[in-house]
């Protein structure tokens, strides 16, 4: 918008300087307010209490799983596997695009229904499109019961000795 100075007020160089300074101050304040609004907006949209599945939960006594058996926790999206040497937990979320994998009773592989990725019972990729293995989750033994920590991943040879 072109401003037509129809008042034609005479202005000294100092007054002009002040006008420029105030103009700069005004745009700066607007800019800062804009950035502040954006930061606050993102902060607002980020939930502080999402009321989700617990990231730490008790599964039960390890003896309840037969050696070689698999406990499938659908809600928590975890497999608890009892191998010959000990117990370990795998995330059942496919590393390709996040679908929940399936494990049929007595079968020796885990298959994703979305795009057909297959994993063995150690979580290693047997066939794609997934490229990363299913992560192993931390297990602890508390008062004789297995506790799964879904936010904590452990090395792929970690076992909970029972």
């Amino acid at each position: 918008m072109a401003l037509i100075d129809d008042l034609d007020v005479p202005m000294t160089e100092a007054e002009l300087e002040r006008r420029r300074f105030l103009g700069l101050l005004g745009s700066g304040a607007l800019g800062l307010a804009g950035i502040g609004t954006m930061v606050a907006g993102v902060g607002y949209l980020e939930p502080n209490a999402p009321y989700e599945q617990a990231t730490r939960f008790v599964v039960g006594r390890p003896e309840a799983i037969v050696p070689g058996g698999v406990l499938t926790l659908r809600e928590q999206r975890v497999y608890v596997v009892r191998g010959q040497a000990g117990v370990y937990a795998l995330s059942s979320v496919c590393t390709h695009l996040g679908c929940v994998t399936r494990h049929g009773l007595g079968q020796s592989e885990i298959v994703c229904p979305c795009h057909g990725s297959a994993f063995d019972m150690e979580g290693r990729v047997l066939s794609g499109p997934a490229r990363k293995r299913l992560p192993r989750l931390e297990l602890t033994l508390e008062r004789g019961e297995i506790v799964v920590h879904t936010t904590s991943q452990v090395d792929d040879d970690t076992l909970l000795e029972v």
Partner: protein
Amino acid sequence: MRKIATALTRSRVWRSVFRHGFPDSNRNRSLAIFSSFFLHFHPVKVRVRAIAFTRTFYLGGLALACFFILTVTGTFLMFYYHPIVPSAYNDMKDLQFVVSYGMFLRNLHRWTSRTMIALVFVHMAWTFMRGAYRHPREFNWTIGVGLLVITVLLSYTGTLLPWDQLSYWAVAVGTNIVGAIPIIGAKVKLLLLGGHEINDNALLRFYVLHCVVLPLTLAFGVGLHLWRVRKDGGIHLPELPPRRDDVGDENYASTRADAGSPESSDAPHENA
């Protein structure tokens, strides 16, 4: 009868609404378009060549018509739909089997969304084929690409709302693709889902995006897009060979001979 019509159109009330007389002269027809909020995005005068069906196949207009249908049917669907986890799916089933005309409205909304995506895509392809993306319409082409993206996003956010298996896994896969963006991916995914899982929060966020944020953005973008069509010189038309009256009989024959090449329209003026 004519007396009543004249009295009516000359009354103060009529004149406060319509500033022009009855559109029976070229001047009044122009004023009718020019002074109406609803018609003013049309040019006052249009070349017959520009509104020939095969020029544009009315693809943009048809896509806009789809948007109107989607807005109306979507608003109707909103009267029965709760974006909460157990009821979202039940409301969708109620709309199909319990609510009067619910099945019709839901299917109309669903099919029109598919049609709109197809139309917007073909509109883009046709604009490209005709070369209408070139100067001076480059910016409007860019706006159009943005509108295509918003249309697809509208369809995608709408996919979650029925809360069935297809919805759930489509959103699981889509948001994991977002999560794979380097550095900001995890954060954007968290903001999009309102958590780490797809549940109530994600449903509500997609609902708000689908019903408020994206439609408003699209409406604003369409306004800008149509305004730019006018400002950029109307619908793109290839140049015609000059008319016999303009160039004279002796030059006219030569212009017809090479009318196929785009340079031919300049040639007669050099001779003249």
